[in-house]
């Protein structure tokens, strides 16, 4: 369980270019932060730095649990979900198989995965191969693992982009419940999130 995320003086360099420097903010349980900024400002890179894929040029990311600071890699592996630009779904497999795999991989159970699919109104779409699904349907399938395998920190990269208005509202409720249950959300967005979120602007 992550109770607090602290980003302290973070700087990320990609190749020769310094994307951003001196970014500091904190995120407490029950809080959401919307990362905004123009294309190329480094929103995705910041999320990937928090997820541990990119080593920051400066600064650090601290995960604080109920009993003090957590070992970062352990916290990422146990308590962190990342939804990236790509949904991580193997297109030649049946939706249900991929959903159950992703859920169990993140430590959830099969029954929870199917309940989550009901929640996001996937229904019979689960019986199709992933390549038959639209971008929005794939994203909903990917979002199911957030519900099915509870982890406290959600790192979301443009989570709403392919979704229609109804799915956005539905996922808004899901995010709201996550926050009320003591979760944390850090989302890179261009459109406003359907929940109350503090805005952190990159490259502004």
């Amino acid at each position, binding site marked *: 369980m992550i109770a607090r995320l602290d980003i302290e003086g973070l700087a990320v360099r990609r190749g020769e270019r310094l994307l951003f420097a001196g970014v500091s903010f904190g995120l407490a349980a029950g809080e959401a932060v919307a990362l905004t900024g123009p294309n190329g400002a480094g929103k995705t890179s910041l999320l990937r730095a928090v997820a541990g894929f*990119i080593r920051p040029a400066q600064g650090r990311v601290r995960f604080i649990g109920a009993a003090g600071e957590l070992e970062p890699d352990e916290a990422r592996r146990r308590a962190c979900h990342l939804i990236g630009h*790509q949904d991580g779904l193997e297109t030649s497999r049946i939706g249900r*198989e991929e959903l159950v795999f*992703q859920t169990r*991989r993140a430590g959830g159970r099969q029954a929870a995965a199917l309940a989550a699919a009901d929640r996001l109104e996937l229904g019979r779409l689960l019986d199709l191969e992933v390549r038959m699904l639209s971008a929005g349907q794939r994203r909903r399938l990917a979002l199911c693992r957030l519900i099915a395998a509870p982890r406290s920190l959600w790192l979301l990269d443009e989570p709403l982009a392919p979704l229609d208005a109804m799915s956005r509202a539905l996922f808004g409720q899901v995010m709201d419940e996550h926050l009320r249950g003591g979760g944390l959300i850090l989302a890179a967005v261009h459109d406003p999130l359907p929940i109350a979120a503090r805005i952190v602007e990159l490259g502004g």
Partner: protein
Amino acid sequence: MSAVGVLLRREMALAWGRGGGPLLAVGFFTAATTMLPLAVGPSPAHLAAVAGGVTWVALVLASLLSLERLFARDFEDGALDLIALGPLPLEAAAAVKCLAQWLAAGAPLALAAPLAAVALGARPAAGPMIAVAAALGGLAFAFVGGAGAALALSSRRGGVLIAVVVLPLLAPPVIFGGAAVGACEAGLAWGAAFALLAAYALAAVALAPFAMAAACRNALS
């Protein structure tokens, strides 16, 4: 343990599901070994002399076929992110992927190898030894090849890089395996070459996961 099982089952389903792994590898292997008599002529003496060596060469090439997609597939569709953020360390996940690759391609090839060798004129009594050697060699091919496949992730012409990086590393198991099979064929002592093959395979299993995990991390960053 269940995390290993979940990943292994998916990898196996992927390998079998698209008909790529076992059918492609065994099909290629069978084609390569049946082409030989057509190319060098049907003289049994000729064929029997090279049966072990040709089997072994066809084995390496067949094992390399589906390697390129081992990590590239998951890298492209974002699944490697999920695997990296899963409960298993990346080293273990990479080892599981190679093990699945071996189960899907190496093990069927190990069953096909003695058949091909005997068909080409090897002594039937050498069959079991050829199967075991092919299984061990396949383990080395899968893990060393996996390291090459992971290294190729961050480059554009990955396939070429795999061939350049991996082929030299596959020379030792080809030498030891070919020597063991040849010696067994000729009725000589084959223990030493076989032991070296086994040692190489075990070293690959022990070391390659670290190389694969480092290469994947590099590609993800």
